[in-house]
C-alpha cells in the first residue's frame, strides 16, 4: 500500500547549514496494516508522515502509494494532527464536511455520511454544536470523522492524542482501534508513548535521531481486539522493553562509559 524507498530529507537551517531530518528511510506498509512510528523528538517522525501525505517532498528517494509516486497530497490519504484544528466558526457537522468542501466534492448524501461518522464516534446530538462547546477528546473525535469523510485508504496521524490528558488518551486509543476494526484502513500513527505504540500497532517502527532513520521494526504479536489489560502480558512487555532499549540504550551505555 505505502512504500517508502530510501527516503532522505534535509532542511536548511536559518544559518544556512544543511540538516538531515531523514536519511535513507525504507519502509513498506501493507493494506489495512497499523504501523506506529515512535522515537525521540527530532528523529523525523513527523517529516516522514508528511512525506507520505505529500505535504513535503523528499530530497532523495520516493514515497509511493499503491505504486503511484506521491508528489502532492492524494485522495487516498488523510491527516490527523496533534491539535484538532477544527474551524471555530463551523458546527461539528460542517467541520466534518470541510474536506469535501475544500475538494469541491459535496454530494447529496454527504451530510448523511457525516452524520453517520459522528454517530460512529459517539457524538450523536452534538452535530450542531460549535467546537468550543466540546472537550478536547470530543474535538479530536470530530477531527477523526473529518479525516474519514472522503473515505481515504490511508490515515496519517501525527501524535493525535498527544495533547489529551492521560485518561482521555487511553479512551481514545481504544476508540481508534474500534473505528479501525469497523472501517479497516492503513494507519500510520506517530507517537511519543511507547505503550500506546505497542497497543495500537501490528508493527512498531522505532526511529533514532540525527540523522532520522529507522533503528528497528518490531512485530507486535498480540491478539486483537486489544485492551489495556494486555499491558501485563509478557509479549507486550518484551516489545516495550525492546523499544526502550533502542531509544535509551545508547544513552545508558554512554553514561556507563563516562
Amino acid at each position, binding site marked *: 500500500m505505502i512504500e517508502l524507498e530510501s527516503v532522505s530529507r534535509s532542511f536548511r537551517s536559518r544559518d544556512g547549514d544543511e540538516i538531515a531530518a531523514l536519511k535513507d528511510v525504507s519502509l513498506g506498509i501493507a493494506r489495512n496494516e497499523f504501523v506506529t512510528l515512535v522515537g525521540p523528538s527530532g528523529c523525523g517522525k513527523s517529516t516522514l508522515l*508528511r512525506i507520505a*501525505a*505529500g*505535504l513535503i517532498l523528499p530530497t532523495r528517494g520516493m514515497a509511493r502509494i499503491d505504486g503511484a509516486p506521491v508528489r*502532492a*497530497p492524494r485522495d487516498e*490519504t*488523510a*491527516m490527523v*494532527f*496533534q*491539535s484538532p*484544528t477544527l*474551524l*471555530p*466558526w463551523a458546527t461539528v457537522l460542517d467541520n466534518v464536511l*470541510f*474536506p469535501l*468542501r*475544500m*475538494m*469541491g466534492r459535496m454530494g447529496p448524501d454527504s451530510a448523511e455520511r457525516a452524520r453517520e461518522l459522528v454517530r460512529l464516534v459517539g457524538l450523536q446530538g452534538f452535530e450542531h454544536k*460549535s467546537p*468550543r462547546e466540546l472537550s478536547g477528546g470530543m474535538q479530536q473525535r470530530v477531527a477523526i470523522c473529518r479525516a474519514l469523510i472522503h473515505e481515504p485508504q490511508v490515515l496519517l496521524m501525527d501524535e493525535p492524542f498527544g495533547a489529551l490528558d492521560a485518561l482521555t488518551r487511553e479512551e481514545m486509543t481504544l476508540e481508534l482501534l474500534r473505528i479501525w476494526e469497523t472501517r479497516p484502513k492503513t494507519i500510520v500513527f506517530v507517537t511519543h508513548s511507547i505503550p500506546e505504540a505497542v497497543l495500537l500497532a501490528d508493527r512498531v517502527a522505532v526511529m533514532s535521531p540525527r540523522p532520522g532513520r529507522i533503528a528497528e521494526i518490531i512485530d507486535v504479536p498480540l491478539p486483537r481486539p486489544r485492551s489495556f489489560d494486555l499491558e501485563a502480558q509478557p509479549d507486550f512487555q518484551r516489545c516495550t522493553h525492546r523499544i526502550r532499549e533502542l531509544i535509551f540504550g545508547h544513552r545508558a551505555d554512554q553514561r556507563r562509559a563516562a
Partner: protein
Amino acid sequence: MRGARDALVPLAVVAVLVLVWEGAVHLFSIPAYLLPAPSVIWRDCAAIAGNIAWHTAATMNTIMLGFVASIVISLPLAVLLTSSPAVANAIYPVLVFTQSIPKVALAPLLVVMLGANELPRVVITFLVAFFPLVISIATGFLAVPAELLELGKSYRASRLRELYRIRLPYAVPFIFSGLKVAITLAVVGAIVAEFVNADRGLGYLIITSTAFFKVPVAWGAVILLSVIGVVLFQAIVVIERVFFPWSSSVEAVSA
C-alpha cells in the same frame, strides 16, 4: 436585566456630568463664548435643528463613503501583503509612508487635484482610516495556525479556496477589531476634510459658527460628532455579535 443595568450606569454618569457642567457655568458666571451651559447649547441647536440635521447627513455621508472605501481597499491590500514576502517587502514601506504624511497637510493639495467636491473628503477619510484595518486584516490572515493551512493543503485547496474558507473566516475577529478602530478614525478623517474644504457638514458648521461667535452651536456639533462616533462603534460591535457570534468570544489581539 444585566444588559439594562450595564447601559444605565454610564448614562447616569453622563447625566451627573452634564448637571455639574450646567451648575458650574451658572455658579462661576462663565461667559457663553468660553463655555456655554448645556441648556444654552440645547436651545441654540434646537432653534436650527433642520439645518444641523442637514449638516449631520452630509458628514455621515462622508464618513460612510470613506469607511466603505477603507474596507473595499484594505481587504485586497491585506491579501497582497500576506501573499508573499517579496510582495510584502514591496508594498509595506509604501503603506507606512502614506501613514507618515500628515493628512491635514495633504488635504488642500487633494482639493486642488480632485476638485472642491465630495471626492477629496472621502479620500482623506479613507487615508486616515484604512491603515489599522489593513494591518489587522493582514495580522488575522497570518495568525491562522500552520496545521489548519496544512489541513487545507492536504485536500489540495487552491489559494482562493484557502483564502475564503480558512484565512478569511479565521481573520474575522481581527477584521472586526480593525473595523472598530477604522470607524472611529473615519469620523476624525471626515472632520479634518471638512475643515479644509466643505460647504456643508458638521466640521464646516464648527468652523463657520466659531467664526461668527456662535459658540454654543459649535459645541453642539462637537457633542453630536462624539455621539456619532459612539453609535457607529456600537453598531459594529452589534453586527459582530449578531452575524459572527463565535468571533466576539475569541480573543483577538489587534496590531
